[in-house]
């Protein structure tokens, strides 16, 4: 094993509890409240923060807008926006900036009122602002977000024999975890899920088809929500309230439609080797897999690309409930209930870091005994066409 760098750690986390704010708070307010609670969690205050990472989801020109709103004068301002994977990029950049001596305490925040705004993230059309060249070639097709992912699933089935029953394993495992998480159960109540209980494979494959071959129970919810993560240098981390969760490795990559390309392989196949290589560990050593579950096929594809199993074997690999937290063969998948059954306000990446940190601290509602290593993998954009991958490897002392 290579000399593992432990130069930055997650020291504070907060997940905003409500998934339906009924229009009573703004995304900016969710960000600020989450930041304050995450700083409390760490035993730090606003004055300790010297680096801000912001995807701009709550307003334009976030580099100065968010600093003013929080009342901070940071030395490092990073406004990377790569959709739902933004927070893995922010964590990677914060670790890099802290290791370089540019900052001591980094603050990442997220806030969204997608549900209150009735944003039809999954089945809306495109349009509006000036089109990119790529969009100008595709605007006429009636593409929906679900259909984009469904086309990956269709090709995966064609190429490797993957079945809907195998894809349903992703949904049943995350719901199994959601039912143990009171926040997730409340979320499903607030969002008026019809049947709030553990699901079976049959439940998933018999649910309504949204875009073939993806069924309703293979699609994430659309909630309100947000959260915050505080990342600090070792000398700060050692004096925080909770045990540090070290950032051991990171990787970034992008992929887009390519003539003759393989849609069943995502940008994660490029980002994961960077992250695992830097951390000096293998996927088989991972206890906790926090993988962006926008749809069932997202997780199946990413499990393969992260290196948990060879390309094309994901369907067979997940069979039999393997991804549940109480199984020995693991890894445990999305132990908070995931975007499928707990929290998806549009850009879920920050929750992957938060639940991974909970597990490595021993605070999860589906706690894996003795969990030592976690991967958080964010996918931003659309898996079947243009998207970004951000992989973060986390470990405890």
């Amino acid at each position, binding site marked *: 094993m290579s000399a593992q760098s432990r130069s930055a750690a997650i020291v504070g986390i907060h997940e905003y509890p409500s998934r339906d704010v009924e229009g009573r708070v703004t995304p900016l307010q969710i960000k600020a409240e989450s930041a304050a609670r995450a700083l409390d969690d760490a035993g730090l205050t606003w004055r300790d923060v010297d680096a801000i990472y912001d995807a701009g989801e709550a307003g334009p020109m976030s580099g100065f807008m968010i600093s003013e709103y929080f009342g901070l004068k940071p030395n490092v301002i990073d406004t990377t926006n790569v959709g739902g994977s933004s927070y893995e990029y922010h964590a990677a950049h914060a670790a890099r900036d802290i290791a370089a001596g540019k900052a001591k305490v980094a603050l990442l925040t997220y806030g969204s009122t997608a549900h209150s705004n009735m944003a*039809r993230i999954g*089945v*809306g*059309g*495109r*349009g509006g602002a000036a*089109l990119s*060249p*790529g969009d*100008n*070639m*595709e*605007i*006429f*097709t*009636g*593409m*929906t977000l*679900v*259909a*984009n992912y*469904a*086309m*990956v699933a*269709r*090709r995966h089935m*064609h*190429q490797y024999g993957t079945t809907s029953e195998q894809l349903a394993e992703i949904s049943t495992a995350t719901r199994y975890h959601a039912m143990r998480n009171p926040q997730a159960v409340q979320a499903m109540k607030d969002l008026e899920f019809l049947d709030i209980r553990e699901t079976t494979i049959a439940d998933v494959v018999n649910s*309504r*088809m*949204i*875009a*073939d*071959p*993806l069924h309703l129970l293979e699609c994430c919810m659309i909630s309100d929500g947000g959260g915050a993560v505080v990342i600090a240098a070792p000398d700060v981390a050692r004096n925080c309230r909770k045990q540090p969760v070290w950032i051991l490795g990171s990787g970034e990559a992008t992929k887009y*439609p*390519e*003539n*003759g*390309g393989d*849609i069943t392989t995502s940008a994660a196949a490029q980002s994961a080797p960077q992250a695992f290589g830097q951390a000096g560990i293998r996927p088989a050593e991972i206890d906790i897999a926090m993988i962006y579950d926008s749809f069932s096929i997202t997780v199946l594809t990413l499990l393969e690309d992260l290196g948990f199993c060879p390309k094309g074997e994901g369907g067979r690999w997940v069979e039999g409930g393997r991804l549940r937290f109480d199984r020995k063969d693991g890894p445990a998948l999305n132990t908070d209930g995931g975007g499928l059954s707990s929290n998806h306000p549009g850009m879920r990446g920050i929750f992957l870091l938060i639940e991974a940190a909970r597990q490595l601290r021993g605070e999860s509602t589906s706690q894996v005994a003795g969990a030592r290593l976690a991967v958080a993998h964010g996918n931003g954009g659309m898996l*079947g*066409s243009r998207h970004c991958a951000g992989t973060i490897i986390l470990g405890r002392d």
Partner: protein
Amino acid sequence: MADANRPLPSLNEADTGAFWEATRDKVLRYQKCDDCGTVVFHPRRHCTGCTSGNLSWHTASGKGTLYTFSVVRQSYHPFFRGKVPYAIAWVDLDEGPRLLTNITGVTDPATELTCGQRVTVDWEEHEELNIPLFRPA
């Protein structure tokens, strides 16, 4: 207010407008580099394979293969919600470009389509341009 018509591409978009201009004559065009042979699609001004940027337009036969597809059953778009269920697909043209399109000429796309099947262009006519949809060959 959004209207209930198919959303159409812009003829003025800097990189792809020339592609759509050619569709007025039902010509399906793509770019290829004179120097390195790279097929460039979507259209743009530079070659993605080398730095020379000597791209020429070529005409595709309109024949290709269905790479993958989905059948959309739920849409809130004012035009497409009246079209469900409809098939959306990535089609690989024989000349190399992969384009996103809809599949026509099937009554039940969920059972009549398979990855790898042959398709051919089926132009949908509009005033200022035509739209390259595809149907089973």
